[in-house]
């Protein structure tokens, strides 16, 4: 009797599994194509995550209004990774398991992206990140791409800028995490090569440090002519705001690309140089994007919104380029050989990285002005 119960149970289970498998097969042939999006929507960087999701949503919405891909509408599956690698990793598994998700736009934090990238590789699911900038992601997977700049490019670019301005002594400020360190390392290496002397190195903690008195005091006494800040916008703003009190008033300040956001303009940053990748005057396409984004969400898109928009558009373009059946593999192949004209410039991917150019801006009369 016991044995028979066991057999019946096994049979029941098998039937259920069979039904489930057919269920999945059915979903793949449904009318809709899904794109996954994993961004921090709660927590301290929720505002930044939201602007990325808004941009991705806009791209998807515009495509659907044009009729979608081969008559199929695109559905965006949004997940909140809270900026935490643990949540990000479980979201990646979820995306890989959902067979109707054919591509992913993810994630904001480099650490989250690092936690996800192998899962996507294992699931043959192409992923494209608009913001994850760490050099550790370069060439890490055949299924990963980024419209985000690479930190090592940003660091070298900053060093070249100082050299071109005839500045020979600089102070380096960096936030003590992967992002800050990645830029700082590249910056230090390039400075050595170009003969720019780093007279003092100061660190701070992202999201925590508000008092820069000791760092700025040391900088004021170091004889530096300029400060380079590898970090995010709030900290950069605070450093600019506080520098006057410690004898750093006349130094040239350059903020890494984390600072290319409207929030920086709220601080005392007149004359400060900022690296960025998106110029809204660059092309007609960029202008249209800014207008459409503003009309949809009521605020101006920044660097990362533009990058996210491009990432989503590249995924959509790759889907359109697919001639045969639309699968994860075919989309991945299309992304890998794409050349796409986005709002930030022209993209093509080598070793995960895009060919997008770094730009230099200066805060003049309270707005970012592109330097030639």
């Amino acid at each position, binding site marked *: 009797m016991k044995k028979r119960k066991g057999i019946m149970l096994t049979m029941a289970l098998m039937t259920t599994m069979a039904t489930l498998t057919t269920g999945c097969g059915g979903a793949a042939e449904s009318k809709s194509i899904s794109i996954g999006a994993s961004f921090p929507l709660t927590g301290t960087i929720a505002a930044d995550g939201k602007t990325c999701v808004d941009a991705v949503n806009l791209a998807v919405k515009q495509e659907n209004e044009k009729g979608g891909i081969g008559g199929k509408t695109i559905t965006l599956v949004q997940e909140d990774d809270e900026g935490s690698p643990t949540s990000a990793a479980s979201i990646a598994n979820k995306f890989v398991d959902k067979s109707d998700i054919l591509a992913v736009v993810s994630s904001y934090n480099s650490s989250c992206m690092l936690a996800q990238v192998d899962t996507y590789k294992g699931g043959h699911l192409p992923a494209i990140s608009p913001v994850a900038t760490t050099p550790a992601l370069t060439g890490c997977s055949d299924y990963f791409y980024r419209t985000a700049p690479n930190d090592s490019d940003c660091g070298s670019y900053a060093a070249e800028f100082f050299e071109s301005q005839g500045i020979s002594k600089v102070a380096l400020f960096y936030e003590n995490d992967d992002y800050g360190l990645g830029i700082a390392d590249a910056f230090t290496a390039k400075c050595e090569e170009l003969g720019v002397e780093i007279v003092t190195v100061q660190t701070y903690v992202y999201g925590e440090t508000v008092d820069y008195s000791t760092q700025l*005091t040391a900088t004021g006494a170091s004889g530096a002519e300029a400060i380079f800040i590898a970090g995010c916008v709030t900290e950069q703003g605070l450093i600019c*705001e506080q520098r006057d*009190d410690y004898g750093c008033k006349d130094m040239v300040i350059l903020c890494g690309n984390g600072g290319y956001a409207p929030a920086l303009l709220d601080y005392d940053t007149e004359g400060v140089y900022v690296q960025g990748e998106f110029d809204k005057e660059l092309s007609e396409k960029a202008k249209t994007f800014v207008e459409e984004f503003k009309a949809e969400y009521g605020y101006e898109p920044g660097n990362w919104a533009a990058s996210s928009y491009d990432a989503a558009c590249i995924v959509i373009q790759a889907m359109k380029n697919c001639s045969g059946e639309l699968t994860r593999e075919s989309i991945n192949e299309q992304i890998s050989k794409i050349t796409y004209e986005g709002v930030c410039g022209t993209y093509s991917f080598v070793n995960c990285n895009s060919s997008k150019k770094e730009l230099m801006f200066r805060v003049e009369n309270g707005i970012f002005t592109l330097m030639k």
Partner: protein
Amino acid sequence: MFFQHLINGIIVGGIYAMVALGYSMVYGVLQIVNWAHADVLMFATFIGLILATKLNMPVLVMIILAAAFAAILGMSVERVAYRPIKSGNRKMAVLVSALGMSTFLQNLAQLIFGSTTRQFKAIESKTYMVGGLSISNLQILILVVTAIMLLILYILVYKTKVGVAMRACSVSVNNAKLMGINTNLIISGTFAIGAFMAGVAGILIGVYYSAVYPTMGYLLGMKAFAAAILGGIGSIMGSVLGGFIIGIIECLGAGYISPAYRDAFAFLVMIVILVIRPSGLMGAKRIDKV
């Protein structure tokens, strides 16, 4: 550069001292740690920010009003979260209630004000050079206000009848009650005074760094609590001394060794002193009778 670091240290030290007093006084009277103290500070700073930016109030009025708000909030915290459960020997319950209150206030602030860092530009910053050292008007303001607040507190505690009652409560609440002291009133008053000083400190630090955000109380509160412990919790003079020691050591350590370990220096000093003097620099030995 040494003197510049020293000035920076004295200024943050003064802030720590003002916040530490709140922890210390409440502990002196009730033997509980008021974890919500730093969050009351954060709330008051936001109120100050709103008064200054939305209503364009003069700085002095703004500070007093916001600190008064802190005092009321501090008293309410005591009324809501501590008084109902403090009867009997339930210190653990009060501790948990305090942590809960802290989390509640922090989340409430995120809900109301959002989680982004706001700027606080109530006073235009000017820098003066004095003998090779640069000092700003904000730093002078912080020093002056801290000195005035500490002086007022000293007079209140050691020269007035209320002060005598407070000190009596800190020796023994029950005995003070027997002597005809309205202990509930004194306890409320202690919370109010501590919160008032924290409110002032919060606004000063908010303006000084030009940063106000819902979690601003956390690290500040931790350092101030370390200062109170280091000086001997329950002792007013000890807290002030502890605040300045922590402020100066962390600035010198950050300046000469590495700014990355700034917070570590503050807590390291506390641990070292506690190993040498377990009851703090000026704390009286208290024997817990079980």
